[in-house]
């Protein structure tokens, strides 16, 4: 018996040892021990006019071994000289950070943002990055980019118009695939694609037949997805996967699998770091320095300083926050929770060896804000009697400015901020991001102030007077009815929009309490977090109010928050009408889509005014002129709004970096993703002083 038990035990032990020995390595490529940070001598001081170039020690070894051309041949003819923020750095080190989903988009924003055009570091506009320069024709219908001569992909192949031609002709215009379709900003007004011409190896010309392209090139600078995912196509590499060029029976599916630069090790890229390893379970990414990267510092050292960026996938937010508090990540943008996490992370900062970048804001124009659906229609099953007539009465109410103003002045914002935010937030009505470039300068600031302070003074008596004037009498249960006398329950949809379900739940509970007691409006909270119909309820116009997070820096590349030109937010169906080409749309209603062409804005309605202003902005040739049109549109929101009941905004965010990280700019806005922070700065100049 004893013998049997001990055999059993040893079987367990041996079994577990065999299993651990059998475990295959996560990545076959990673056989050598991780290299220690290869910090070397600080680069020697040289005259500012850079004539001689230095490189990372690991690359120098490869040059010596003959496996890599010398640095002068790898750099473009005119390398871009980047002035370091604090100091010329030392080479070496692997930067560890995390993400929560396979696209690792939050890390792509570090460096995969150097499109032909990128955001300026202070977010006040755009500047050339991957291309040397660009210009528009006087009528704006032609846009020309001049590429950098001698710039190369990370495998040494030249980057020329051939790559653009490949993308445009073989991918984007190819009717056999639908994944990389031509976005609306590369189309003429009539919906046909603009033409793209390549007169020589380094010149790209966009031509529209019927509209100015003043704004459209800036789309390339938005987030990590517009350029990196859609336009960055190494023709020499991808041709092997394209059905047209191969005889090995490759399909479009094979092509799609290969054409993901952030998941395909060896995919040539143009950024400071390119993907070299991805563990077989998809949980660990390594981006290694691009030996052909085109920036140097003021002493001629080729960037980046940091050897590699390592990303682990940690799906659970609480686990990430704990890891952050322990100082596990060298840089942590967008992974350590929201404003309510700041006190906890501050307590552990000393132990964890990290500090906050305290000028990193969320950029929230409203967080939370309650969108009031201007296109409310039947179909949302918010009550038993879900008919078009009933819906129309509610829509008329929601479209009534007096009603929305009553909502906006009918509650005490400070109390909501205390409940949901522990007091950390500015009280304001909804706006774009306070840091938006439309608000730069004295005039912009005045517009911002007027908008943010519009209808925020709590005045229950005035609010009740407005509701009384609308004919909303109180019924038997003490709650106000619709003007017709039908009972009315105002449904507020909420999700974790903005990143925290708790904030939205806490805030909505407080809103319900206040609107019910102050105004006698019956409120129902509809928590639809994780429900697959969240989008349907918004885009088909089924919701009444929805808890939202509003933020945007450049409203012309992301017009959704100001102009009803897309199928979204608080003008979902009027926006759809504009996006589907207005009266030209002929699609017939189908199951679950009662308004496939949206709703045409009524004459003189705010939606009509705003759509006209959007077209005006698109046709305006100067930056200042466009800002002025934006201010005009904001004036519509001020005088005919509010369309969103903003509660608070401009919260700071917990962005932490280890104390040894150098050259990191302490400014960014992480709520909206389009401004691509921290990619507003040049991450290639970051270095580790350890």
């Amino acid at each position: 018996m004893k013998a049997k038990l001990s055999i059993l035990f040893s079987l367990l032990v041996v079994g577990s040892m065999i299993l651990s020995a059998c475990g295959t390595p996560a990545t076959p490529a990673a056989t050598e021990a991780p290299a220690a940070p290869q910090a070397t001598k600080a680069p020697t001081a040289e005259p500012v006019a850079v004539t001689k170039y230095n490189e990372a020690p690991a690359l120098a070894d490869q040059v010596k071994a003959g496996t890599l051309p010398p640095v002068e041949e790898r750099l473009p003819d005119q390398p871009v000289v980047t002035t370091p923020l604090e100091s010329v750095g030392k080479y070496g080190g692997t930067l560890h950070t995390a993400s929560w989903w396979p696209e690792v988009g939050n890390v792509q924003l570090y460096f995969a943002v150097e499109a032909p055009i990128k955001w300026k570091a202070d977010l006040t506009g755009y500047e050339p990055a991957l291309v040397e320069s660009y210009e528009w024709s006087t009528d704006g219908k032609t846009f020309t980019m001049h590429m950098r001569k001698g710039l190369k992909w990370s495998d040494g192949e030249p980057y020329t118009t051939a790559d653009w031609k490949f993308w445009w002709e073989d991918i984007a215009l190819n009717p056999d695939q639908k994944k990389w379709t031509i976005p609306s900003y590369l189309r003429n007004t009539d919906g046909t694609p603009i033409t793209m011409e390549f007169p020589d190896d380094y010149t790209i010309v966009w031509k529209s037949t019927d509209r100015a392209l003043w704004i459209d090139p800036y789309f390339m600078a938005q987030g990590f997805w517009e350029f990196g995912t859609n336009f960055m196509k190494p023709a020499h590499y991808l041709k092997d996967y394209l059905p047209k060029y191969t005889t090995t029976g490759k399909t479009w599916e094979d092509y799609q699998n290969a054409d993901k630069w952030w998941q395909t090790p060896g995919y040539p890229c143009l950024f400071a770091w390119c993907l070299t390893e991805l563990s077989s379970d998809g949980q660990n990414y390594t981006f290694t320095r691009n030996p052909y990267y085109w920036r140097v510092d003021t002493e001629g050292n080729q960037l980046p300083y940091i050897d590699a960026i390592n990303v682990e996938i940690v799906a659970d937010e609480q686990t990430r926050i704990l890891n952050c508090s322990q100082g596990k990540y060298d840089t942590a943008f967008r992974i350590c929770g929201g404003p309510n996490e700041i006190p906890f992370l501050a307590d552990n900062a000393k132990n964890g060896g990290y500090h906050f970048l305290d000028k990193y804001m969320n950029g929230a124009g409203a967080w939370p804000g309650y969108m009031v659906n201007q296109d409310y229609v039947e179909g949302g099953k918010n009550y038993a009697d879900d008919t078009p007539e009933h819906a129309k009465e509610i829509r008329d109410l929601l479209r009534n400015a007096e009603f929305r103003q009553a909502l906006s002045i009918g509650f005490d914002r400070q109390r909501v901020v205390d409940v949901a935010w522990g007091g950390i937030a500015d009280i304001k009505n909804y706006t774009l991001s306070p840091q938006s470039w439309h608000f730069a300068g004295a005039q912009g600031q005045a517009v911002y102030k007027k908008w943010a302070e519009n209808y925020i003074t709590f005045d229950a008596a005035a609010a009740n007077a407005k509701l009384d004037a609308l004919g909303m009498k109180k019924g038997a249960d003490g709650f106000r009815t619709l003007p017709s006398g039908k009972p009315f329950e105002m449904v507020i949809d909420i999700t974790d929009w903005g990143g925290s379900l708790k904030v939205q739940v806490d805030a909505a509970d407080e809103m319900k309490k206040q609107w019910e007691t102050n105004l006698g409006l019956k409120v129902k909270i509809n928590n639809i977090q994780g429900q697959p119909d969240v989008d349907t309820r918004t885009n088909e116009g089924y919701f009444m109010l929805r808890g939202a997070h509003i933020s945007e820096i450049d409203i012309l590349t992301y017009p959704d928050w100001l102009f009803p030109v897309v199928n979204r937010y608080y003008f979902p169906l009027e926006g759809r009408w504009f996006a589907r080409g207005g009266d030209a749309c002929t699609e017939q209603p189908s199951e679950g889509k009662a308004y496939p062409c949206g709703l045409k804005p009524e004459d003189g309605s705010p939606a009509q005014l705003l759509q006209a202003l959007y077209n005006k902005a698109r046709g305006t040739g100067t930056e200042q002129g466009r800002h002025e049109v934006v201010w005009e549109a904001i004036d519509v929101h001020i005088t005919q709004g509010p369309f969103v009941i903003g509660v608070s905004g401009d919260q700071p965010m917990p962005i932490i970096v280890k104390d040894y990280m150098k050259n990191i700019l302490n400014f960014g806005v992480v709520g909206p993703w389009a401004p691509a922070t921290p990619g507003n700065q040049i991450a290639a100049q970051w270095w580790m002083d350890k």
Partner: protein
Amino acid sequence: MASYIIRRVLYALIMIVLVSFVSFVIIKLPPGDFLTQKLSQLRARGDRSAEGQIETYRVRYNLDKPFLWQYSHWAWNFLHGDFGESFEYERPVREMLGERVTMTIILGIATLVVVWAMAIPLGVFSAVKQYSMGDQIITTLSFVGLGMPGFLLALLVLYFAITVLDVEATGLFSADYVNAAWSWARFVDLTNHLWIPAFISAVTGVGGLTRIMRGNLLDTLGQPFVEAARARGLKNGTVIWKHAVRIAINPLIVILGSEAIPGIIGGGGLVSVVLNLPTIFPLFIDSLRKLDMYMAGTCIVLITLLTLIGNLLADLVLAWIDPRIRLE
């Protein structure tokens, strides 16, 4: 014996088909699918090409086909070793789960060893020294362990490890070893991390087993053959370990099959998520949330399979240890 095993294997196959089918039905119940969620994410961040991409994915993942077609297509490929593609990761499920299955088994066995190595001596001590101070302490701790949910304990241990011990507590490897090939150093690194999940499972698992061991042994100690052994003048240790414990341990092996293995395989799910362990559970739970159908289906089948194999092994071990049991 052979026919018994064959019969059990057949039952297991039927069970797996049923479980996988039912889980597919459940995943399909809510309105919408993975792509409606993905579309809203892409739109929310302002991706202008989202709508076009989604249709491509719908065709690629066969989400435009009827439910029964999807299930049978997946099941047929499963039999051929193709578990389908994870929607979220856009990678073959098989590739993603490869090392994680191994890790799940290692963790399960490590837990089992720790739990048993602690529960049996503690139970024996508790029974032999009934109502002593030691017994009272063990009993109290057992009830705490029984009552405490694993994930809560995991959070407490994490907090303690981070704020007091200042050690790295999540994952199974340090950042430097995650991608490394297996080596002695990596193994040491693994054991440095393994103690936390093992400790958590031990605290939650040991309590119950200790109580059972204690109760059984108390019953056995009162039996005439124990008296007889003592009367023959055998040493106390021999009486307890050779005569009483070998009888009292049988129910523990029954529990190993019926409760312990499923408990360890299934119950560790939330702990794995909290500790970010590279087992199949974090992927499983995430796939359920995202309606990532083929990933979730494969995880369920694997978990069922591991449980059924564990059950069968426990039954065989019991028959081997206790000659009175016949398997027919």
